[in-house]
Each structure stands twice: as structure tokens, then as C-alpha cells.
């Protein structure tokens, strides 16, 4: 079928009633004189017709007389035991993340292999891991400050740092930015 690339999408928008104003008039005028667009719209019409016919014919065969009762049954059914709910949730999660489990297992295996090979090569794993923990001495260098003056625009916050168990005072001046 010959198509009209410039107006094909616009013709479909016109067919769906999604064009307004001057563009609508322009596309209508074009379609009236374009064989390719007229055929495209006729094909869309036929596609809608056969699709609707197919879905309608299937829906007509469905017996809806017990539809509500079945929903009511679902609503008044006692809650499922926790292990059944867990299994259903698990099945849903698996369906949504088909690669989740293999990828997670592969990542865990890689991490384990890396740690094992590092310890086999006498790599100081403990000190390597401890480098990720916060250094208390680094906190200590910031633990002293002097407040010279306070104004109405200054906010003072005081909290306890959970890792080093040290009190922290935070002074924020809206005019000059944060001053620890």
C-alpha cells in the first residue's frame, strides 16, 4: 500500500478526534484529496470493526449471572494464612522480576568469590573493610567550634552522633550559608 508519511500519523489523530483548530482543518483538507490517506483511514475503520466484532462476540458468550456472587465470595473469604500469602507474593515478585533471582545469586556468588580470593592472597580484608567505617578521629577534628554571635536568622541544632556517641552542634545562618 502506498503511504503518505507526512500525514499518516496526523490522519490517525484526525480519525481519533484528537485534532483541533487549524491543524484539524488542514489535515481534513489533505485527506480529502489524498488517496493514500483515504486508504489508511479506511483500513483503520476496518481494523476497528473486526477487533470490536471479535471482542464483542467473545464477551457475548460469557455468562455474567454469577459474576457479582463470585466477587462477593472473594470479598467475604477469610484471609489466607501468612505462608500462602507469602508464596503468592513471591510468585508475583518472580513474575515481575524474571531475572531478579539469577542476577542476585550471581552477584552474591561473585562477591563471595572475590572475598575468598582476597583472603587467599593474604589481602588485609579486615583493614580493608574497616576503612569503610567512619573514623572517630576525623570527627574529633570538627568537634570544636566557637559561636561568636547569634542573630534571629541563625538556627542552632544539637544532636547526638550515633557512631561516635559525640554531641554535635550545627549552626546555620540563612544569610551566609551553613557554618559548622
Amino acid at each position, binding site marked *: 500500500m502506498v503511504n503518505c508519511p507526512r500525514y499518516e*500519523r496526523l490522519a490517525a489523530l484526525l480519525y481519533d*478526534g484528537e485534532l483541533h483548530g487549524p491543524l484539524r482543518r488542514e489535515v481534513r483538507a489533505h485527506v480529502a484529496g489524498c488517496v493514500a490517506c483515504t486508504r489508511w483511514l479506511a483500513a483503520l475503520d*476496518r481494523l*476497528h470493526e473486526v*477487533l470490536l466484532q471479535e*471482542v*464483542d462476540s467473545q464477551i457475548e458468550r460469557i455468562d455474567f449471572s454469577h459474576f457479582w456472587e463470585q*466477587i462477593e465470595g472473594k*470479598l467475604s473469604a477469610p484471609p489466607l494464612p501468612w505462608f500462602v500469602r507469602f508464596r503468592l507474593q513471591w510468585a*508475583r515478585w518472580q513474575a515481575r522480576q524474571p531475572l531478579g533471582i539469577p542476577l542476585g545469586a550471581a552477584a552474591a556468588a561473585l562477591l563471595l568469590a572475590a572475598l575468598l580470593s582476597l583472603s587467599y592472597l593474604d589481602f588485609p580484608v579486615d583493614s580493608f573493610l574497616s576503612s569503610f567505617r567512619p573514623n572517630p578521629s576525623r570527627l574529633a577534628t570538627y568537634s570544636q567550634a566557637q559561636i561568636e554571635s547569634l542573630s534571629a536568622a541563625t538556627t542552632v541544632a544539637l544532636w547526638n552522633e550515633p557512631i561516635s556517641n559525640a554531641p554535635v552542634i550545627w549552626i546555620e545562618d540563612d544569610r551566609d550559608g551553613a557554618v559548622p
Partner: protein
Amino acid sequence: MEASDWELVKRCKEGDRQAFRELVERYQRKVVAVAYGMLHDREDALEVSQEAFAKVFTSIHQFKEEASFYTWLYRIVVNLAIDRQRQKSRQPQLEREDQEEEESNRVEAIPDTPEADPYEQTKDRELGERIRAAIAELTPAHKAVILLRIVEGLSYEEISEVLQCSRGTVMSRLHYARKRLQALLRSEL
């Protein structure tokens, strides 16, 4: 006078099951049509639709009145149908084939009306099969957009609300789905 969706939803939020029943009866065919279009199986479509309505009732308090009820309902049914389709695609092939055979037997067992022309019936059945096969070729996102547009007659704005995507995405998905179906059903169109 028929109560509006908004009034029925309000009554549902107060625990009125009769109001919910009215909503179900108002939308059951439309919801099953979308589910059927997505799943191509009447039993699955019925089950997913009932599950969707049950979910609507249990989470009606989460529904915000600024959106329309039916776009929210369609969103739930489309998501459940996509989940069901994914679960089915993970089922073993043999089990699926058994189910499909059972389904086709059920279709054959439906009595024909005496005035129907057997030739026309065969032709219609073949066309139906070709249409089902063509829709099955589409991705769930493309199926949803074409069903909501053609079967439910939703506007692009409403479809974008249901599928939580932009209007531009709706436009391009719809265009792609139509072109694909047109190519697959060339002899029929």
C-alpha cells in the same frame, strides 16, 4: 435517576456493598473485554476481572476523587492482566497446551443458532482466530493501548492516565500497534 460513579464511590467508601454492586454491574462487561483482549482466554479474563473488582473494593479508600473511577479501574485490570500473562508465560509448555486445548473444546461445544450459516460461521471463526493471533503478537503495552482506544473508546488523555505514561507515548504506541495489526491482518483489511 442513575447515580454517578462519584456518588457510588462515596457510598462504597462508607462500606455500602449495594453501591459497589452497581459499579460492578456498570463496568463488568467493559472490564472483562479489556482483560479478554489482553489474555485471549475467557476463564482467565473472568478471574482477573473479579480479582480487579475485589481489589477496587478493598482499596477504595486510596482512590482520589480528582481522577475518574473508570481510569483507575482500568489501570488495576490492565496491571493484573499483565501479571497474569507473565505468570502464564512462565508455566511449562505442556501445561499451557493442555489448557489451550481445553479452551478450544469449550468454544466448539457452544451450540450454534439454527439460523446461522455454517459457511459464515467458519469464516467468522477463522477471522476471529487470525485477529486473536495478531493481537497476541503485540507487547502488553501495545495491546493495552489499542484495546483501551478501540474497545473502550478512551481518549488519548484517558489512556495516558490509565497507563501512567505521556500522551505522546500513547500516540506512538497506538500508531505502532495499528501498523503492526494492519500488516498482520493485511488480507482482512
